[in-house]
């Protein structure tokens, strides 16, 4: 028994000096493979598939702002040739009209912006148009948020709790309609 007691216990130790090197190596690997790309884009919700038997709800002509982009990328705004830069202002006037002008919408809730394209329309033009329409809504929301005492719409939205309704958006809903493609337009 005495012999056992005498035996010196060696402390078990793992050398930690190389720990930093190992961690560095892993770090470099992940640094190289990481791509921190935030996915940004223009969000949309497509209309559900049309039921053949039920007609889509009618929209009064004056509540509809029609934007047409042809195959050369030219813009027709309410049947008038115009430029992409004009869209934003026109959408704002249309949505914020509140029954003032007979040619524009009755109420913001009824206002619809319709975008129609050809099969040959350049995608870039479509995105630019979409961008202008969304920017118009963003500007309207910003104005509304400022009148509520916020710095901008972004600030208003982050101040909302999850359960609370986004009142600005329900007051000024972005109703963008993508026109049904012509049936004969396919290949």
């Amino acid at each position, binding site marked *: 028994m005495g012999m056992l007691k005498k035996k010196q216990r060696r402390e078990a130790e793992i050398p930690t000096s190389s720990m930093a090197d190992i961690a560095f190596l892993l770090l470099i690997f*992940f640094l190289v493979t990481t791509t921190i790309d935030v*996915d940004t*884009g223009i969000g949309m919700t497509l209309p559900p598939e049309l039921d053949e038997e039920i007609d889509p709800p009618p929209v009064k002509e004056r509540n509809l702002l029609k934007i047409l982009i042809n195959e050369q990328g030219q813009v027709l705004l309410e049947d008038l040739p115009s430029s992409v830069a004009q869209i934003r202002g026109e959408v704002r006037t249309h949505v914020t009209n509140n029954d003032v002008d007979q040619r524009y919408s009755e109420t913001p809730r009824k206002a619809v912006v319709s975008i129609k394209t050809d099969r*040959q*329309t*350049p*995608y870039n033009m479509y995105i*630019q148009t979409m961008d202008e329409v969304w920017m118009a809504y963003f500007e309207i929301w910003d104005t509304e948020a400022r009148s509520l005492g916020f710095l901008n719409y972004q600030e208003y939205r982050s101040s909302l709790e999850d359960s609370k309704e986004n009142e600005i958006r329900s007051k000024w809903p972005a109703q963008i309609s993508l026109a049904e493609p012509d049936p004969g337009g396919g290949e």
Partner: protein
Amino acid sequence: MAHFTKKSKAKPEISTASLPDIIFMLLIFFMVTTVLREQEVQVRTILPQAEALTKIEQKRYVSYVWMGPEKLRGNRFGETRVQIDDAVVEDMTNIRLIMYRKLTVEPRLIVSLRVDEESEMGIVTDVQQELRKGGTLRINYSSKRDISNL
């Protein structure tokens, strides 16, 4: 002068004891943020630029659809094609089923359309019609921030 030479020089040393901890912290950060690219994109997608951008915060809900000219050998580009996951879609009518299956797995699915800016609307409309048939209505036109206007 003697006064100066007598001054004992303390060796300046930075303690390296916390170095592994710092490195580990960085390591863990990058491990968490890393998304290993599992798909190889076979079509060219130069994204358009836009201003009215929103960020997709929940990346796990996102499913990508690439559209653009097919990459061919020798830096040439072919016809405009649609790619979902890791395969080029040959028959457009398959898209509705692919998307429907994805939607049953993840009901909050967002389809990110990564379309080359030189594409035409025809193919985009076709894909959109398929997405509607599949019931995946939340889409996102992937675009880059317009740097020229800043």
